């Protein structure tokens, strides 16, 4: 059974911001980190990732800047902004609340 894409959709931003908290990163690295951290349970699609980048950049949560890969190729890097950190904290609180609510309804069925 796979993860629910409906639930995770609301938290793609949170996942990406979390990975940008410590250091700037670029598209594929983020996608790879998501994959390894979740042990292949969540593989983010390229289009999902890209639309999250543009949306968050428009909202001012992240900034993009051109950088260079090890092999000298141009690459777009993203870094988190202060308002992005603020947003991340809000989303974390929101998730705690959501999780608490949902967990109240998760139980083993008595047989």
């Amino acid at each position: 059974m796979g993860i629910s894409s409906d639930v995770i959709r609301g938290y793609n931003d949170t996942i990406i911001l979390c990975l940008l908290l410590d250091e700037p990163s670029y598209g594929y690295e983020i996608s790879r980190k998501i994959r390894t951290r979740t042990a292949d349970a969540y593989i983010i699609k390229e289009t999902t990732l890209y639309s999250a980048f543009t949306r968050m950049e428009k909202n001012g949560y992240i900034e993009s800047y051109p950088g260079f890969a090890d092999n000298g190729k141009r690459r777009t890097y993203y870094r988190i902004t202060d308002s992005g950190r603020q947003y991340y904290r809000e989303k974390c609180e929101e998730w705690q609340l959501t999780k608490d609510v949902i967990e109240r309804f998760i139980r083993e069925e008595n047989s």
Partner: protein
Amino acid sequence: MNTIRNYLESMFAYLPNTPDVIRAKCELGQMMEDKYNELINEGKSDNEAVAQVISEFGNLDELGDALGIRDILKEEQSAASHIRQVSSDEAEKYLEEKAHYSLFAGLGTFFAIISPCGVILAGTSGHASRTLMAVGVFFLLAAIAACITLHTYSGLRMASWNFLKLEPCTVDYATAGMINDLRRSTHDSTILQRTVSILLFCSCYIPLVILHMMIGKSSVDGAGVVILLFMVALAVLILTVSGSREGGYRRILSLGGSRITGNSSGKSDVVYNRPAVRVIMSVFWPTVTCLYLIISFLTFSWQISWIIWPIAAVVSSLIKSVFGIRREDFEK
């Protein structure tokens, strides 16, 4: 890696050329390339890596907001919710049936052109036999009947697709892309078919001339005319089939309207902002054709009357460049 690049190209081929779209394409290309390289480094085969990258690419619909084209799409949808969406299955079925029934119609025309063959052979055979003539006339009538039947049948069968002409329809990017690929893949054979049919047209009188010069009997001339008719009929058949296939592609691609780039790759449309010029240009070529025929038949100076065509072409280009506006500029 080329497969991935082509995949990306084809996904983006029908999107507007805005900075947002170009940026998205570069970014997505980067990500896919990075992923591909890593998969190769992990020891995956080229095929496996390509398959994984493409399967994990996602859906272009998700990019609507990112590309700034969501508004356009939404507007189109709400303003024109009555527009019929032609699915890729429907498009394929349409093309298949069009190819199929255009062969019927083409065969019909083929029979119409060769219908006088029997009468010609009977008439030129030298010994005026009533039976031969009767057979010839029978063949003529049968061929015309076949022609009418085939045309009616194919017309009736294709009538179910009339909505493509009558109702506003549209196709999505993926379908347009698929059709355009199909069209490109048949491009060479279309050109070959046109060349063959033009060659047939140009050389159709040669057997007649050769037979006439070598033997010179009226019965043999009849055979020459029959060969001529067959060659013309074959050429028309090939032209009908290939033209109708191309027409089908154009019809589907034109449903996408101006937002689909495959559509604008054809000849550029010219519009006229003066009504008088528009009226004149809409009847220009039919008028020239009538003039040519009238003058030629009245004066019988065919050897010079062809000059009307180049003159008309020059006049038409002049009018286009003086009064015409290219459709793209006009829409801006």
